[in-house]
C-alpha cells in the first residue's frame, strides 16, 4: 500500500466539477510533482487533501504504519495531526506576528502543557517553552532566518516569506509535505536555492513531498514522478522525461494548434 493513495476523488462546486475522478498514489520518500495549466484544479486537489474542502466522492487514504486512515472529510487540523503539512499558493503567514511566533504557533499541537499551566505558568511551562523556542530556532536556522526572528513576518522580502511558510509547515512535524507553488514569483537564483533546500529538508526530515509548480525547471529537476491535471482530470503521469514528451501534456500547456503546426 502506498503512503498516500487517492481513489477516484471528485469535487463539484454546484455545476462545476473542479476535480473529477482523480486517482494518484505517493510512495514513502518520493518527491512527486503536480502540474497543469491555470485553473486545472491543482489547488482544489490540495484543499481536498488537507481538509479545507470535503470531497463530493472518492477516498483519500493514508497509511499510518499499516493502519489505513481515511482523510476525506476530516477537519484541516485533524489532517495536520495525521502528518500532512502544507504551504499556500498566496502566502498565508501570520503577518503581524514575528517570524519566531509564526513557527512557534505551528508547534502548538505538540505542546506538552495544558490550559492550567498556560494560565498559571508553573516551572513545567518554562521548560516546555524553552524546548519550543529551541526547536523553532533550529528550523529558522535551516532557512537562514535566525537573524530575523524578531521581525514581523510581513516585513520579510517575498522569497523569505516563502521560506518561512515552509519552516512553519515543518514545525508541525509532518511526514508528508504539500507545497503549493513554492517558487511562484521567485527569480532563477532564488528558485535554484529553493530547489536545494527542498532536496535537503527531504533527506533531513525523512519527508515525502508533493508539490504544485509552474516553474518547469524546478519540477523537471527535482521531481521523481509527475502528475498532470487539466480541466480537473488527470491526463498524464510518469517520469519527467515521459511527461516532457507526452502529446496530451503539450496540448494542454501550449494549445492544440501548436502541436498540429
Amino acid at each position, binding site marked *: 500500500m502506498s503512503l498516500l493513495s487517492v481513489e477516484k476523488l471528485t469535487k463539484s462546486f454546484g455545476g462545476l466539477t473542479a476535480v473529477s475522478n482523480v486517482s494518484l498514489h505517493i510512495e514513502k520518500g518520493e518527491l512527486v510533482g503536480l502540474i497543469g495549466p491555470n485553473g486545472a484544479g491543482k489547488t482544489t486537489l490540495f484543499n481536498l487533501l488537507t481538509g*479545507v474542502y470535503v470531497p463530493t466522492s472518492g477516498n483519500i487514504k493514508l497509511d499510518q504504519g499499516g493502519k489505513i486512515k481515511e482523510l476525506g472529510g476530516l477537519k*484541516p*487540523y485533524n489532517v495536520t495531526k495525521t502528518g500532512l503539512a502544507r504551504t499556500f499558493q498566496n502566502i498565508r503567514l*501570520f503577518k503581524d*506576528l514575528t517570524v519566531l511566533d509564526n513557527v*512557534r504557533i505551528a508547534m*502548538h499541537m505538540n505542546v506538552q502543557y495544558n490550559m492550567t*499551566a498556560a494560565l*498559571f505558568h508553573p516551572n513545567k511551562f518554562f521548560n516546555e517553552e524553552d524546548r519550543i*523556542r529551541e526547536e523553532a530556532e533550529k528550523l529558522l536556522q535551516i532557512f537562514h532566518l535566525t537573524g530575523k526572528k524578531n521581525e514581523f513576518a510581513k516585513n520579510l522580502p517575498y522569497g523569505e516569506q516563502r521560506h518561512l511558510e515552509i519552516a512553519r509547515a515543518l514545525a508541525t512535524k509532518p511526514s508528508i509535505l504539500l507545497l503549493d507553488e513554492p517558487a511562484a514569483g521567485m527569480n532563477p537564483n532564488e528558485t535554484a536555492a529553493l530547489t536545494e533546500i527542498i532536496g535537503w529538508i527531504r533527506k533531513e526530515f525523512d519527508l515525502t513531498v508533493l508539490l504544485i509548480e509552474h516553474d518547469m525547471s524546478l519540477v523537471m529537476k527535482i521531481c521523481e514522478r509527475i502528475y498532470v491535471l487539466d480541466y480537473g482530470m488527470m491526463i498524464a503521469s510518469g517520469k519527467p522525461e515521459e511527461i516532457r514528451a507526452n502529446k496530451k501534456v503539450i496540448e494542454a500547456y501550449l494549445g492544440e494548434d501548436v502541436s498540429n503546426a
Partner: protein
Amino acid sequence: MRVLTKKNIMILGSILLAFAIVQLLMSIGILNSFYQITIATICINIILAVSLNLVTGFTGQFSLGHAGFMSIGAYVCAIIMMRIPSTYGFLLGVIAGAFAAAFVGVLIGIPTLRLKGDYLAIATLGMAEIIRVIFLNMEITNGAAGLNGIPRFANWLWLCFFTVATIIIINNFIRSSHGRACISIREDEIAAESMGINTTKHKVMAFALGAFFAGVAGALYASYFYFLKPDLFGFLKSIDILVIVVLGGMGSITGSVIAAILLALLTTFLQSFTAVRMIVYAAILVVIMIFRPQGLMGSKEITDLFEFRKKDDRIE
C-alpha cells in the same frame, strides 16, 4: 524559579506601592467616598476591558455580549451573598459567579463562534439580551425591581486583588502556546487550522475565559454597589466596555488598563458640567480615534517600552 525575575519583582513592587498609596489616601480621608466609587469603577472596568480584549483584541472575535456575562456573575454573587453575608460568602459568590458566567460562555460560544465578524457581533448581542430578559422575568432576581441591599464586602483590597489577578492570568494565557494559537486565529483562521490548531476549541476557550472574568467583574459590582437591576447590563454597557478596548488598543492589555482609568477619570471630572458632559465625552473619543485609530497603545504593551523586557519575548 523563573517567576522571580527582576522584571516581575519590580512589577510586584509597584503594585504594592500603588495599593499602599491609595489605602493611605483613603484612610486619611483625601480620597472621599465619591472618589472611592470612581476607583471601584476603574477596577471593575479594567477587569471587563482586559477580558473583552482577550476575546476581541487577541482572538479577533467581535463580541457585543460582554455585559451579559457580567450580569450572570453579578446576580449569582448577589444571590449567594444575600444568603451567606460574610467574607466567605462573598468569595464563594465571586467564584460561583465567575464559573457560572464561564459555563454560559461555553454554551453560547459553541453555536455562535462559527459566525464571523458582524454576524458574530449581532449573535452575541442577541444572547446578552436573552440573558437580560431572563433575569427580568425570574423570581429569584426580583425582576425589573432588581435586588436591593446586597451586603458590601468588596473593598479596595479585594478590588485591587481581583484586578491584578485578572491581568496576570490573562497576560499569562496570551504569552502561552494556547494564547499564541488564539492570536493566530485573529491573524488568519485558515492558516491556523492548517497548522493543526482546533480553531473552534480555542475560540470557545478564549470566550469562556473572557466570560469568567466578566463574571468576576459583575460579582465585584454587585458587592460594591449594593443594588442590581437587569437594565444595568443592557446593550449600552457592552458598548461601554468595547469603547475602552478600542480606545486602549485591540490587543494591548496595558492599553485597556490605561483607557479604563482615563475614561473613568474623564467621567468623574465631567460630572460638574452636567449639561455638556456627554458631548465633551463623545467629542474626546472622536478626536482620539481620528488621531490614533489603532488606539492609545496600538498592540504594544507598556513593558515593551522598558529595557528589562527582552526583545525575544514579544508576541505581537
